[in-house]
């Protein structure tokens, strides 16, 4: 394949990269990489099986978001406001702001720890990246940078190659996939919640639905969006699976329990040798910046949409004060917290994902009620299978959360 053909192939990828694929790539953010690395290095392949049911739930849930977006032409917070009233909306939005704020902090933790590999102190890297991200949106240059981020996501392929080169025990992996195990220790319970929370994050449902609405997709073209969502969900889980098994085959075997980025980077050693740190740092930095430029923006959008405040990056500050205020606050406060001395970066990333997992069932309940509303969705209401699978997801998550909190206290 010559260079020109390869270039064309890339362009084709961009052309088909719809909201589903973009959302999935943002999904593998700093919190995601940290959580998957920790899952593999702490528990080996023992929790690998959980990614299969997570993928099914992810496809079902993302499909519902996309369908609601196409059919109603409205965002999720918009629908929650119109159907549950302002009281419910305010409390839901507060929960979402706090959860997403946790994720924003995690993204800056990702920036800090990736650049620490190149011995850039966080007191330099974090303020600079916060300002960069803030400017991207305020200056309206985000769209052109998005493509760069998206290409850089090809970095995840390195995990697949490294995973194969590390010669993992495929038989054991196969066994783990068909024979799920969980010992109900707080460590494993927390990790499962974190895995669900990072793969099916609450913010993704708002973001995906908003991007689908933004695209103005007619109902008759909905099948393309569904394919887009399915491909995206599949890719994100495959990448997650390979991060886990690569870390299991390298770090877990060597007895390394990931606590810093330079330790997590060792998973890429079979592929990159001594350059593994640089490669990992690059991937983590891209993932963090990509998500850091989307999360605060999407949060401000969904909050202002639900509350009925002016939104949009083409407005002046005085026209949309709440929008810009919240946006700036999320970025600069999130970055500011990372500047606190001695803050454990990897734990921050991991804990934010557990919070995602705990908040998720609440959001899912709202989504389920809305997507089953005949007046709203017409003939596109949920089929029975969808309700069963998302119902199970909600119940399992609530049970896991309760069990986790109980074991944590006990």
């Amino acid at each position, binding site marked *: 394949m010559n260079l020109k053909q390869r270039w064309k192939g890339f362009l084709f990828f961009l052309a088909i990269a719809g909201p589903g694929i973009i959302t999935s790539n943002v999904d593998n953010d700093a919190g995601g990489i940290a959580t998957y690395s920790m899952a593999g290095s702490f528990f080996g392949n023992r929790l690998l099986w959980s990614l299969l049911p997570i993928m099914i739930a992810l496809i079902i849930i993302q499909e519902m978001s996309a369908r609601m977006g196409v059919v109603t032409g409205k965002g999720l917070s918009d629908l929650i406001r119109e159907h549950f009233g*302002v009281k419910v909306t305010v409390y839901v939005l507060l929960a979402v702001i706090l959860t997403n704020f946790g994720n924003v902090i995690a993204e800056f933790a990702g920036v800090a720890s990736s650049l620490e590999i190149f011995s850039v102190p966080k007191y330099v890297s974090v303020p600079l990246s916060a300002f960069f991200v803030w400017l991207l949106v305020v200056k309206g240059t985000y769209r052109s940078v998005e493509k760069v981020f998206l290409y850089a996501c090809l970095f995840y392929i390195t995990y697949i190659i490294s995973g194969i080169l590390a010669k993992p025990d495929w038989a054991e992996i196969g066994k783990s996939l068909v024979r799920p195990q969980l010992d109900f220790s707080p460590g494993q319970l927390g990790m499962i919640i974190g895995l669900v929370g990072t793969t099916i994050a609450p913010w993704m449902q708002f973001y995906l639905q908003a991007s689908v609405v933004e695209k103005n997709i007619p109902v008759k073209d909905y099948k393309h969006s569904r394919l887009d969502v399915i491909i995206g969900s599949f890719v994100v889980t495959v990448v997650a699976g390979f991060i886990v098994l690569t870390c299991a085959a390298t770090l877990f075997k060597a007895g390394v329990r990931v606590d810093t980025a330079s330790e997590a980077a060792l998973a890429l050693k079979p592929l990159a040798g001594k350059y593994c740190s640089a490669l990992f740092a690059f991937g983590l930095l891209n993932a963090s910046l990509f998500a850091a430029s989307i999360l605060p923006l999407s949060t401000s959008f969904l909050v202002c949409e639900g509350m*009925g405040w002016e939104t949009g990056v083409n407005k002046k500050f005085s026209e949309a004060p709440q929008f810009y205020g919240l946006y700036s606050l999320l970025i600069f406060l999130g970055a500011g917290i990372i500047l606190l001395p001695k803050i454990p970066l990897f734990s921050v990333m991991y804990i934010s994902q557990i919070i995602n997992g705990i908040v998720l069932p609440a959001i899912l309940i709202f989504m389920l009620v809305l997507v089953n509303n005949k*007046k709203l969705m017409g003939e596109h209401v949920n089929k029975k299978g969808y309700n069963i699978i998302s119902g199970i997801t909600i119940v399992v998550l609530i049970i896991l959360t309760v069990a986790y909190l109980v074991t944590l206290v006990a």
Partner: protein
Amino acid sequence: MSLGAKNELEKKETANKAAVAETCPKMFVYFSELQGRALIDSRGRTVGKIDDLKVKLGELFPKVTSLVVRRRRLKKLSALDWAEVENFNGEVISLKAEAENRFSPLEVGREELLLRADLLDKQVVDTSGAKIERVNDIHLLTANKELRIVHVDFGIRGILRRLGWIKAVDSFINWLFAYQYPEKIVSWKYVQPLASDPKANLKLNVTVRKLHDLHPSDLADILEDLNQANRSSVFKTLDLQTAAETLQEVDPKIQMSLIEATPEELVTDILEEMEPDEAKDFLAELPEERMKKLLRRMEKPYRENVEELLKYEEGTAGSIMTKDFIALDRDTTIAQAIEEFKNVFHPLETVAYLYVTDEKKRLVGVVTVRQLLICNTQEPLKKLMNPYLVKIRTEDPVEQAADLFNKYKLLALPVVDQENVIQGIITLQDIVETRTKEL
């Protein structure tokens, strides 16, 4: 008049006022304060809780016609005519005797609106600010035993009131900044509700009239901010002229989605109403087949105009010119020319100049409207026309036209073909538009 007598009189007046106030108390109440209130029957028993109110649109300040009541938990909503209300003092709603037997199933007809289901928390258009807002609360006025919508609350206070935080937040802000957050309420006359379920009901169509007072450019901004379903339902209700002017102003992406959702007959009617150069620009964006189909449906004179414009290459003077101009033979008298002006039935893009042609339709001069108005009406045009005119050829580049506008401070520039026959004009507006598009 003695001082004592005056005092006496004042006392009487205040007494009178109090009596009037007692017989018909006039006061404001927020819908959020009524929601969930108990409904008391003539014997003092609670018969249910107020869930919603139904109003009849049409009047300037619409009147509440029915109470929507939840009689028991998990039971369906039922309606009760407002006439069954015996007394409402802003706090308690009590019913007339036997009213509890006159509940009926809830039905919402055309031109009727439910405050909670159709208005509260929904998006509406505030035509006073030409903006889309979300309804946080509804301000009602009770007078003469009637309840009417007077204002809509778009402000933060409305949200705080419904959350039950208003007192706490007020005293906190007052303590901290000695300041009270202002109300943001807008009179109902500037509020245009949108259909909550645009696909299923068109009952609001008749009343979307309020939007017609807006300038098409503002209307275009509002359409861009609306969601797709509401956008096309509002668009369909606009009259042809407004629709055409609005369509020219909206973002091309949204133009497409509007046209997709509008029946073809209506689209062609709107296209015929548009200025030919705008219609051409619009059609040129469409897929070939769609464009041809629409063109075929247009009536002949309009179609020919647009088809002609489509012939010119992008970036040439011909591609941006408009066919909206007046050209008359040089032997026409001024009186006849003024008559011509009156007979043009659609608004011209510009009325600054009148072009003068010879018997072979070749451009020979120009007359300004000012000249028409002040000169002897029996003179032929050739007597007062200015034969030295600036013009441009259809195939010349747009930049050249822009330079001419710049140099000669023109309002419009005639465009001629190789035989010097006038084909169209370029207005200053056209130049400004192509320039801003480039930027």
